[in-house]
């Protein structure tokens, strides 16, 4: 009798938790492993899309094979390792050779990782894509909105910030209402982008 109560108060709960943990963790791990391949594919497509977008090349957003095709046609990865090149050499829609470079900088909450696209002069932006950012949703995170990113095309620095929706010359950038810190962080990144790009590309021997 005593042994049984000992079993039900001490041993059983532990056994139960162990069994439950094993069952659920293996189920979750199984699902993780079956989707791992897909996740990796997503990530590589994500990077390719970002490069194409920054270079201003049109592509169908939801068609991975097509994106792959356009990418292989237009973009050449230079240096670095597989999947993490130093920079990208791109054939721009105009036919001229452009470059796309990773530029990193501090945001309000964490690092902002962006890919800037340049024309051959390494001065004029062809566009930008923010690959990683942790800005406040609804405020700073609006840097990922289309209209905000589009404003970079054809501009060259050094820049100054103007009120949201007010930029009308090539050295002005729109700020975001309610996200002064993020706007300034992006300004800083944009201002140093050309110089970093020139260094990276020169190191690549061009």
């Amino acid at each position, binding site marked *: 009798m005593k042994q049984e109560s000992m079993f039900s108060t001490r041993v059983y709960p532990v056994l139960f*938790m162990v069994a439950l943990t094993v069952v659920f963790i293996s189920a979750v791990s199984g699902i993780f492993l079956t989707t791992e391949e897909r*996740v990796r594919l997503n990530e590589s497509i994500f990077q390719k899309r970002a490069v194409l977008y920054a270079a201003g090349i049109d592509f169908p957003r939801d068609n991975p094979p097509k994106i792959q095709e356009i990418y292989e046609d237009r973009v050449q990865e230079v240096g670095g390792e597989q999947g993490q090149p130093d920079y990208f050499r791109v054939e721009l829609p105009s036919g001229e050779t452009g470059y796309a470079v990773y530029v990193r900088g501090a945001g309000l909450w964490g690092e902002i990782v962006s890919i800037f696209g340049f024309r051959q002069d390494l001065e004029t932006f062809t566009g930008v894509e923010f690959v990683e950012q942790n800005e406040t949703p609804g*405020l700073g995170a609006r840097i990922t909105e289309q209209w905000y990113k589009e404003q970079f095309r054809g501009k060259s620095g050094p820049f100054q910030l103007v009120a949201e929706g007010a930029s009308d010359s090539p050295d002005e950038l729109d700020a975001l209402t309610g996200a002064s810190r993020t706007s300034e962080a992006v300004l800083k990144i944009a201002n140093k982008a050309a110089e970093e790009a020139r260094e990276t590309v020169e190191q690549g021997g061009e």
Partner: protein
Amino acid sequence: MATRGKMKKTFTDPLGKNNPVFAQVLGICSTLAVTNKLENTVIMSLGVIFTTTLSGVTISALRKLIPGRVRMMAETLIIASFVIIVDITLRAYMPDVWQQLGPYVGLIITNCIIMGRAEAFAMNNSAGLSLIDGLSSGIGYAYVLIVIAFFRELMGTGELWGITILGDWWTNWAIMVMPPGAFFMLAIFVWVVKGAILKEEEAAK
């Protein structure tokens, strides 16, 4: 054996007066943050419905086996596992949305509604009834947030689901996409619903 009437009541209760969001203002933490975009809210809500339903069924099926002392731990483990499944699935099949939702998917675990329904309902009822309860609690929760997201995105950006609805004549209310907008919208929603319920009660007298 559950009667038809009980099943129906289990389903309709959380959709109306006993809706967890405006009756008790529970569980808004994890999802309110993503209500500035309708698309994110809908996906997030589906995740919540999936988790409430399946965790309700699982906990209810195991309720006679779960020892009292580790009840909370067991429930948390089950809920967390389902949330991870949601996270992994989103990451593999909807990477864009996954990236925007960020940490908020994980926070479904601490959504008070899921834990609350598990404790209050699934521990005492059959798996079938828990399924209905989980489903309707999830739906009751989802529609409130979807209504909020609808107004926030429409008024804040003039768009719905990323498609421009209101033309150039509309001045975007920046406040709606900022954090305070969510609080105001939810307050207005609670006010309207509660006002209607109070009026109904008065008329019934």
